[in-house]
C-alpha cells in the first residue's frame, strides 16, 4: 500500500477514515523523524486553534439589531415578510389593481358640472365655429342664404348645396324658423339654421356625428362626445352668449343664442 502523508492529519484528528492507511502512517511516524515532525506540526496547529477558541458572546448591539429586524411589527422585514405570504400577496395585488382602476376612473372627468367648453379649441372645433358664425350673424357679416319658414324647403336647399347628411329641421312654438345657410369646412358642407323670436336670434349648426373625430372636417373633444353619447345635453355660458350641444338621430347640434341657460335647456335639449 502506498503511503499517503496527509493521513497524519486524520491521525491527529482521530478520524478513522482508512484504518489501513492509519496503521501504516502510525508505523511510519515512529520510524521517520521528518514525518513525525509533520505530525507534531498538525497537532500543534490544531491545538493552537482549539486552545484559543474561547467563545465570545454576541455583542448586544448586534443581537438587538437582529431581534429588532425580525420581530413582528417592529422589524423592517415584517412587512416584506407579510407580503411574501401568497394570501396577502394576492390580496394586496387585488387591492392595488382595484386602486389603479379607481384612479383611472377618477382621472376621467366628472361629467357633472364639467366645463367641456374649456376643452374645445382649434379652427375645426364645432363649438368655436358655431360661436363665430353666431357672432358673424349678429354683426351682419353673415346672412341667411335661404329665407323660409318651411322646413322642407330648407332641407331641399341644404341638399342642393351639397350637405350630404340628412339635416333635421325642428319646429318650435316659441321660436320661428327664419332660414338657413351652408358653410364649408375641409370640403364638407354643413347645415346652419336660424330661428327668431322676441327680438332674439337663435343659431344652430348641425353635423353628422360620423364626420366627427381627429381627422374629421369638424370635431369636438372626446370627453364631450362621450358625454353626448350618454344622452346628455351640455350647456355653457361664454362671452355673454349661451351655447348648447346635444345629439339626436345621429346628428350633433350646437345652439348659440342670447337666451338664458334655462331657456336654452328647456327648448333645445331634445331635438326629437
Amino acid at each position: 500500500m502506498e503511503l499517503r502523508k496527509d493521513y497524519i492529519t486524520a491521525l491527529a484528528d482521530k478520524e478513522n477514515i482508512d484504518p489501513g492507511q492509519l496503521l501504516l502512517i502510525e508505523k511510519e511516524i515512529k520510524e521517520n523523524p521528518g514525518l513525525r515532525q509533520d505530525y507534531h506540526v498538525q497537532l500543534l496547529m490544531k491545538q493552537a486553534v482549539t486552545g484559543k477558541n474561547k467563545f465570545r458572546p454576541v455583542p448586544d448591539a448586534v443581537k438587538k439589531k437582529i431581534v429588532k429586524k425580525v420581530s413582528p411589527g417592529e422589524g423592517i422585514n415584517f412587512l416584506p415578510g407579510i407580503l411574501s405570504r401568497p394570501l396577502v400577496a394576492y390580496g394586496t395585488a387585488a387591492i392595488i389593481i382595484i386602486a389603479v382602476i379607481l384612479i383611472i376612473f377618477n382621472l376621467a372627468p366628472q361629467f357633472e358640472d364639467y366645463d367641456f367648453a374649456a376643452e374645445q379649441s382649434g379652427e375645426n372645433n364645432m363649438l368655436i365655429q358655431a360661436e363665430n358664425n353666431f357672432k358673424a350673424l349678429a354683426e351682419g357679416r353673415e346672412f341667411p342664404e335661404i329665407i323660409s319658414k318651411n322646413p322642407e324647403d330648407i332641407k331641399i336647399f341644404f341638399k342642393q348645396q351639397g350637405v350630404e347628411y340628412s339635416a333635421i329641421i325642428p319646429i318650435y312654438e316659441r321660436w320661428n324658423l327664419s332660414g338657413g345657410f351652408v358653410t364649408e369646412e375641409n370640403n364638407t358642407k354643413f347645415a346652419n339654421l336660424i330661428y327668431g323670436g322676441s327680438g332674439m336670434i337663435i343659431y344652430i349648426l348641425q353635423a353628422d356625428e360620423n364626420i366627427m373625430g381627429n381627422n374629421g372636417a369638424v370635431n369636438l373633444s372626446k370627453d364631450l362626445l362621450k358625454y353626448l353619447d350618454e344622452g346628455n345635453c351640455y350647456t355653457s355660458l361664454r362671452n355673454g352668449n349661451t351655447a348648447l350641444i346635444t345629439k339626436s338621430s345621429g346628428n350633433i347640434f350646437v345652439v348659440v343664442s342670447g337666451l338664458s341657460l334655462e331657456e336654452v335647456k328647456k327648448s333645445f335639449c331634445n331635438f326629437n
Partner: protein
Amino acid sequence: MIFLLLAVIEDQRKLYSDFERLAFPHMEPLFNFALWLTGHDKEAGKLLNETYLKAFNFFDKFDQSIDSRMWLFRIMQNSFLSKHKPEAEINFNEAEEYYEKIKKSSKDISSLEKIFTNNFSDDDIRKFVSTLPVQFRMVIVLSDTQNFSYEQIADFVDIPEGTVMSRLHRGRKILFTKMYDSAKSKGYIN
C-alpha cells in the same frame, strides 16, 4: 382583507416565535464561526446579521424537522462565500517548499508550542486563520472551532472526505508558516 391581514399577522407572530426558539440559541456559535472566518468583530457582526435576516426570510419554507444549527451554518457559509470566492489556483508547491525550509530549522516543536501559546492571543490566532485561502480556512474553522467531523465537513462543504483531510493538512502547514514568520519577526524565535 382586514381579517386576512390579521390572520397573517398572527401567523407571522407564530413564525417569529418558532424562529426565536429554533434559531436564536445558535447565535453565539454562529457569531464565533463568523469571527473565525472574517477575523474581525465588525465583519462577523455583519455576517451574523445577514445570516439571520436571510434565515428569517426563508423560515416559512424551512422544514423544522431538519437540524436548524446546520441550516444556519450553511446559510452563513453561503453568505460568506458569496463575498469571498475561493482562490481558483493556489501555488501550494511554493508554500510546501517554504514549510520544509522552516521545518528543518525548527527541530524542537515543543518549544514552538510554548512560544505560540505564550505570545499569541486568541485574536492573533483568528487573524492568522482569516488570512488563509478560503477553502483551507473553511475546513480548519469547521474542524477546530466547531468540532465538525470529516464526514460533517464533507457534507457541509460538498467535497469528498479525502479532500477535507487534504485541505486540513495543507491549511495547517500554511498556518504554521504564518505563525512562525510572525513569531520570528517579533523576536520570539531567534
